[in-house]
């Protein structure tokens, strides 16, 4: 299968890339790792007239902490995260995701930011970004803006990136010493999208209460969802099995999955509940709390 014809640009500066995107408007698409876009083009689900290949732009591969945030540039590949020992040891949720997103070869090209921009309803990074309260930095003709992930993820395959804009980085809050997380994904095989998955991140107070918590679920609705009611139940509380059960139940309440070869509506909805529960228990276990 061969993609439709397109005009190819490979700018060497961000300014040039933004100018090209501005000039071609909605005709143009950014080409990052291509691991979602190229398959979509081969199936002719996407037929952009112009591709702006950002792979040679300087300064977009930073993966560093600054001002309490982990900055993940738009050219940071999944493997950059997977093979980074600092991230693997301190960012439990991100580390978990980096080992299950797509397959090991795809991860050498696919980017974290590209995955957020793609906003696949079954994407893994979107759920993780919700749970860790990430932000996306967007550059366009009008300058730069930063969006909370909840505002960024608008709908299936739709983000708040406007005409002529490029996402330049994602920012994840640096986890403190009493913060941990987990990603629980059911997949039929390596390289398959989730049947259902849940991302959780939580921070405990010194006396063992839940200070802050983020819960995201994916593949169980038209887009990744924040389980806000579950978060609300847990916030400020001492974790117990009953409380976790109640919070997990909230995931099933908001799930509205499509049945497909991976499972029925009922199964996926129930897995949203099960995986949120497991994720919370695993994250707590990583903080030394056994329930």
């Amino acid at each position: 299968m061969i993609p439709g014809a397109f005009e190819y640009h490979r700018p060497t500066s961000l300014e040039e890339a933004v100018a090209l995107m501005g000039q071609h408007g909605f005709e143009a698409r950014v080409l990052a790792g291509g691991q979602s876009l190229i398959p979509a083009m081969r199936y002719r689900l996407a037929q952009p007239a112009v591709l702006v290949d950002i792979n040679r732009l300087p300064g977009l591969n930073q993966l560093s902490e600054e001002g309490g945030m982990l900055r993940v540039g738009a050219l940071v590949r999944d493997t950059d995260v997977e093979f980074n020992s600092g991230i693997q040891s301190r960012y439990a949720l991100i580390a978990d995701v980096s080992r299950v997103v797509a397959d090991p070869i795809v991860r050498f090209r696919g980017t974290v930011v590209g995955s957020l921009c793609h906003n696949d309803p079954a994407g893994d990074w979107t759920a993780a970004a919700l749970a860790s309260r990430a932000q996306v930095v967007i550059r366009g003709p009008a300058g730069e803006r930063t969006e909370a992930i909840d505002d960024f993820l608008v709908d299936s395959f739709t983000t708040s990136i406007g005409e002529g804009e490029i996402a330049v980085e994602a920012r994840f809050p640096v986890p403190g010493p009493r913060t941990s997380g987990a990603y629980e994904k059911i997949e039929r095989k390596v390289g398959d999208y989730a049947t259902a998955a849940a991302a959780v991140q939580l921070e405990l107070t010194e006396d063992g209460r839940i200070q802050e918590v983020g819960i995201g679920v994916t593949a169980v609705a038209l887009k990744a969802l924040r389980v806000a009611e579950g978060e609300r139940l847990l916030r400020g509380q001492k974790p117990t099995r009953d409380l976790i059960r109640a919070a997990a139940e909230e995931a099933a309440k908001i799930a509205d999955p499509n049945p497909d070869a991976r499972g029925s509506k009922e199964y996926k909805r129930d897995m949203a509940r099960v995986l949120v529960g497991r994720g919370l228990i695993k994250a707590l276990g990583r903080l030394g709390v056994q329930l």
Partner: protein
Amino acid sequence: MEIILNINGQDRKLDVEPRTLLAHAIRDLGLTGTHIGCDSSSCGVCTVLLDHNTPVKSCTMFAVSAEGHTITTVEGLAQGGNLHPIQQAFHDQHGLQCGYCTPGMMLASIALLERNPNPSEEDIRFALSGNLCRCTGYQNIVKAVQQAAQVMGKKSEGLGSAADD
């Protein structure tokens, strides 16, 4: 578009459309060891190495994007008539039956051994989980990678001591 791709150490001039996939560009040069399998980015038989140690599915990259990188295909592994240790190991351990996945398997294995010269069985199975084989059941592929790890490890030890002399 006129582009130059550095494949197996040689600059090759090509005239491609931007939409030409790297896998097709490579095969059109007569380097048909890079196979095309699933045609949907899933099977890994089209895996090549960019810049010596980065495995990519060449069916999921445009040839134009590969400009400026070095590309290694299976044809580039043997040197001066000697099989690369990974090729020798796949041969010795019978790490293939039909051979269709073998080029991709070997290139993905080399990338693993580059960053982890001493992988556990689990590491090997994990690293190769994006490359599908429908014949072997993977057992002998794992054995082959283990043999190659041993041979390549010895070789670099040998070089180290030679340099010390």
